[in-house]
């Protein structure tokens, strides 16, 4: 179980766009972190630095205390697994099983151990029994879960999910939430990028808000969605969850989730 440290990282794309500017972030082993912000705020750019797909223009990334430097992505993929937003830009195999096996196979697994990993990963996302199906016969929701399973099978200490709930229905979102909980229960780190304020508030113990390449807010959901921070959120066109707004109106403190709102009101009664 490893820690991530992002030290004064800046990144400018070759075309000149400054995507990250002085980002400092420490993520302890086993933390769950949700990153929110508008498109172009630097969220995707930041996570791509974790497995070496991008190398910082300034600053350093450290994994487990050692600098990422110029280590190959193929090697870092064993530490940081990233499931990207569009499953169609990843799925290539004709069978679900082959697709999920791709990642662990690249890490050198074979035989019974490989099979076990694949089965476990499919179970975790609720796709047990679809082994022989063609990924494109699965609907979009399940294909997204498949892309997550193919990263879970790598059993990396750090798992990154890029927009896991986009296009998902209620059950899909619930499934993603249970996946995050299951990974966290094993002591592994989970980082997710999301547009869904409620999903982030309910699923992660820590929230980071990004804007124009910088981190503008960092804390627990209760801290980030507290009334004092609403102007900062408004500046980046984000709205706190309704539960938070109700809690603030009723003067019971910061209640980013329905559960915390209920708890606060029960306490008051």
């Amino acid at each position, binding site marked *: 179980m490893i820690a991530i440290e992002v030290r004064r990282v800046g990144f400018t794309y070759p075309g000149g766009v400054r995507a990250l500017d002085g980002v400092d972030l420490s993520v302890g082993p086993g933390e769950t972190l949700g990153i929110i912000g508008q498109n172009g705020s630097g969220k995707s750019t930041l996570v*791509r630095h974790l*497995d070496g*797909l991008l190398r910082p223009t300034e600053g350093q990334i450290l994994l487990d205390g050692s600098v990422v430097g110029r280590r*190959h*992505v*193929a090697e870092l*993929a*064993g530490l*940081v*697994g*990233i499931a*990207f937003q*569009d499953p*169609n*830009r*990843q*799925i*290539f*195999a004709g069978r679900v099983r082959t697709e999920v096996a*791709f*990642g662990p196979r*690249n*890490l050198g697994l074979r035989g019974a151990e490989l099979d076990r990993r694949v089965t476990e990963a499919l179970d975790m996302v609720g796709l047990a029994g679809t082994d022989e199906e063609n990924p*494109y016969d699965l609907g979009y929701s399940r294909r997204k879960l498949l*892309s997550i399973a*193919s*990263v879970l099978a*790598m059993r990396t200490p750090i798992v990154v999910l890029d927009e896991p709930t986009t296009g998902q229905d209620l059950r899909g979102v619930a499934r993603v939430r249970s996946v995050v909980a299951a990974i966290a229960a094993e002591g592994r780190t989970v980082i997710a990028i999301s547009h869904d304020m409620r999903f982030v508030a309910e699923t992660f113990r820590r929230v980071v808000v990004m804007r124009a390449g910088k981190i503008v807010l960092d804390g627990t959901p209760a801290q980030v969605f507290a009334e004092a921070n609403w102007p900062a959120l408004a500046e980046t066109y984000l709205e706190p969850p309704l539960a938070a707004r109700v809690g603030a109106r009723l003067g019971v403190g910061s209640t980013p989730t329905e559960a915390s709102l209920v708890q606060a009101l029960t306490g008051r009664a």
Partner: protein
Amino acid sequence: MRPDPGPDTSVAIPEPGAAVLPAYVLRVPTGPYRALNPLTKFVIAIASAVVAFGVRGWTGPLSILVVTAAIALIAGVSRSLRRFVLATIPIVASILLVNAFLYPGATDVLFRVGPFAATGTGVTVALQAVLRVIAFALSVAVFSLTTATDDFLADLERRGTGRRLTFVIGSAIRTIPTMGSRAIEIVEAQRARGLDTEGSIRRRLRGIVPLAGPMVFGSLGEVEERTIALEARAFSAPVRRTAMRALPDSSTQRALRWVVGLGSLVLVAVSVAGRFPLP
């Protein structure tokens, strides 16, 4: 509550004070060369390329170079041509080296560099070949710098190429940047799962299917979506498409196209028959 029937929009009625196309859509070509019909410019480019390669000796390529340079000056694109010339440097360099030093059977040595001997015959051939390549590159360059793709395709369509074909060509040209960003996303997703693109050749070859697969299937999937979306925008309406920009043609230009086109073929035929009078 009964809704208002409203105006009948199935018949195109010219409305009062009909507007004019904004300048950035009209994109009126400036200068005598640019204002030529796209097909004329295309025929000139093809004819130049044909003469540059098809006429033996120095005259062919040299004359095309002169003609193309003149056109570039008139059209005001001479500075931009530099880019295209620079792009030919790798080919030019290899042609020069290979032919100058390794021309088979040549014995008229001009100078030596280490163990290699440059022959007069080789150098002559090399220089001519270089001239042809540059002449060809420049005539293509002048065409693409003076002709907007949209105009060229619109002209083709007006001449009866058919909506689908012109659309396919046009969107293929425009899809290239999108394919690029799609490819990048695919490469990133596979590398993040351990696909090695930085290691040995053998390891990199293993990446072909995981990289090509989503590219192809994703593109096919998008084709279906795009087909539906296009039909929803009346793409297959059985009428003549409205042309937004008028691309004037004239009988003079038509005559010019015939003269230039046939002329180039005649020159090549004469050269091939060995009767070309000039060096």
